[in-house]
């Protein structure tokens, strides 16, 4: 038969209280932090998973920032190209009006002057900046792509891309060279080149010039207008893609957040019930301990 002695009783009570306290502390920590795992050793596999999910979540949030940034950029680009399109249409009307033989030289000069104004306006539009960066200058965002002095394009052909998903980047810029071109010197049949030619033909006023105005200038102008619409459509497509990416990222964020919560967070109802149960057990153990330790044979001897 096992002898039970006073020392053993005290040891057992202390040990039991100690283990109850340890469990109580774990539950309390869970309830206080709301986390099921506060250290890797609580559940090594889940801790590794939590780490991966946190990293994924950080990436998703960053990509959401990127998408927002890229959308603003696209909106700026889209607005500017839209206004360039309007300018081109207005210029086409002027060319059609100025191409009539009946117009006086003075009137033609006035139309040519208005074309000059439209050229200046288009160049100004092409100098549009977002957050201090020229949007149509390729990657040379610090420079204004067009100057008043000449029609040359001063930007580069660099592509500006934004990361909108893991390993997914899309280009979001259009360059001045594609839209306005480099003027007569470049000979690229873009907006500036065509408008400069048209203004020159108007000012020359001879039948050959007027004929060129009616035929080649007008058809080239049509191409320019088409080109601008296409450029705008491309920007629109990019904006669309950004929007879809944004929706996908929002969904991904929701999923990752939920997964992370499943992995990391404590089940509050269960934790609180555990906590209450353990506190009851602890109090019962304390009371029982106090009652067991007290009496001995000494109390009953004279």
């Amino acid at each position, binding site marked *: 038969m*096992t*002898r*039970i*002695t*006073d*020392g*053993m009783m005290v*040891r*057992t009570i202390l*040990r039991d209280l100690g283990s109850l306290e340890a469990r109580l502390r774990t539950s309390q920590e869970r309830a206080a932090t709301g986390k099921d*795992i506060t*250290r*890797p*050793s*609580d*559940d*090594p*596999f889940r*801790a*590794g998973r*939590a*780490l*991966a999910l*946190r*990293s*994924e979540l*950080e*990436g998703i*949030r*960053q*990509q959401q*920032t*990127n998408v927002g*940034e*890229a959308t603003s950029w696209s909106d700026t680009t889209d607005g500017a190209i839209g206004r360039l399109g309007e300018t081109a249409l207005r210029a086409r009307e002027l060319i059609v009006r100025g191409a009539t033989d009946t117009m006086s030289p003075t009137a033609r000069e006035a139309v040519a002057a208005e074309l000059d104004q439209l050229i200046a306006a288009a160049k100004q539009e092409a100098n549009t900046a977002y*957050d*201090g*960066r020229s949007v149509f*200058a*390729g*990657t*040379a*965002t*610090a420079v204004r792509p067009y100057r008043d002095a000449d029609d040359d394009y001063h930007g*580069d052909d*660099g592509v*500006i*891309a*934004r*990361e909108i998903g*893991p*390993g997914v*980047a899309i280009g979001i810029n259009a360059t001045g060279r594609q839209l306005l071109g480099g003027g007569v010197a470049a000979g690229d049949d873009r907006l500036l080149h065509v408008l400069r030619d048209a203004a020159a033909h108007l000012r020359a006023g001879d039948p050959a010039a007027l004929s060129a105005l009616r035929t080649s200038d007008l058809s080239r102008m049509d191409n320019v207008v088409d080109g601008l619409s296409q450029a705008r459509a491309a920007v629109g497509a990019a904006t669309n893609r950004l929007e879809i990416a944004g929706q996908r990222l929002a969904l991904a964020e929701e999923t990752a957040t939920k997964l992370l919560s499943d992995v*990391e967070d404590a089940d509050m109802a269960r934790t609180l019930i555990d906590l209450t149960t353990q506190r009851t057990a602890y109090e019962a153990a304390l009371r029982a301990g106090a009652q067991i330790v007290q009496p*001995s*044979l*000494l109390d009953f*001897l004279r």
Partner: protein
Amino acid sequence: MSIGSFLGIETARRGLVAQQRALDTTGHNIANVSTPGYSRQGVALAAGRPLSIAGGGPQGGGMQIGTGVDVVNYQRVRDTFLDLQFRAQAMRLGDASARTRSLDQVELALAEPGDDGIGAQLGRFWSGWSDLANAPEAGAARQSVLDRAGTLAASINALDAHLSGVQAGARTELDVLVADTGDVRAYATELAGLNDSIAAAAARGAQANDLMDRRDTVLDKLSALAQVRVEDVPGRPGALTVFFADVDPAATPLVDGATPADAGAVRAWPLTLPASPGGQLGGLAALADTSSGPVAQYRAELAAVAQTLMTAVNRAYTADGTVAGNFFSAAAGNEAATLAVDPAVTAGNLRAGTGAGSNTTALRMAQLRGRPAPENGADDAYAALVTRIGSEVRAARREEVHAQVLSDAVEDRRQSTSSVSLDEEMTDMIRFQRGYQASARVMSTMDDLLDTLINRTGRVGL
């Protein structure tokens, strides 16, 4: 042979003395009810040597008459087999506790999963590049990338330094324990002294119960430190030869039981420990091991994380072929401790891309986030390290709990045999007190008899 008239008084006297000794022992037990390592003692009583009476028996043969009680011995109640079991568990517990204590620190230093761990900082580092890709011209974004890279590198350095600190701490603790002035030697000296006293008592035919308790307590403490083996010494009863931290029978004992303390019973110092001494020393030795211990392996893995990160980042940073310098630099073979942003990289010359507003480099860097090897692999390797440390801490803690439970179970059985029960002692006290009273009564009855004989005999009619 006739029987002396005073035999009865003598018998009663011996009864009184024996009961008093038993009461003394009970008092001793009660006094030591909470002394650690104390084994309850008992008085071994035996009926005294009887007197033989020649003739007068039923068949005319001899008879024997009892002469009361003798105290044969004072015994301590102890099971040496349980001591062996306890010491085996104490050794396991010492090992597991030492490991758990240090590995806990390692785990705390990780600060995972959380917002301050290296995992989160890696994430912020990649995000920094992504921000730079959004605004490659901005000085603030460049500075932010540099700051985040610096913090990440510093965190890896700090974790490595912490791990190295854990190793150094274990080494120091180990060195202190086995030093000239350390616990091991102090215990050994105490054992040698106790051996002398116990052997001297044994030579006088006495059993030194309380000294043996003390010796067992010291052996318990010693066994928590490392493997302990004891042997009796044939030529010197009572003394024990103690082998420490070594299972090799030919090894020099820590304390040589055949030699008196002042003649060099304690082995020569310094003590050279074998590869796995077991116990706390074994745990500490494994932690301090700089080539194959658990902490050494964590450091190697952390260095691999730093190395992978550095390779991936530098490859992406220089991929255009137009950059001369790397982004991260570190001393080869010691990447975790020395990883840093290359001193040549500044906020001014940090490359975001091929030109002023180009973000190709930053974009390439941002897309390394969470990519597996061979592109990156640092995030994965770090997560694997965290999982591994978590598993091993968990295993160490479980081992400690297991050893604690077993050691408690053995200790309970030991206590069940050896520790003092006040109820029992109280009962004994009543028993011995009553025995004493009864013996005294026998004596006064004998006195009455003699009174009758001496004072009243031959006085008929007076």
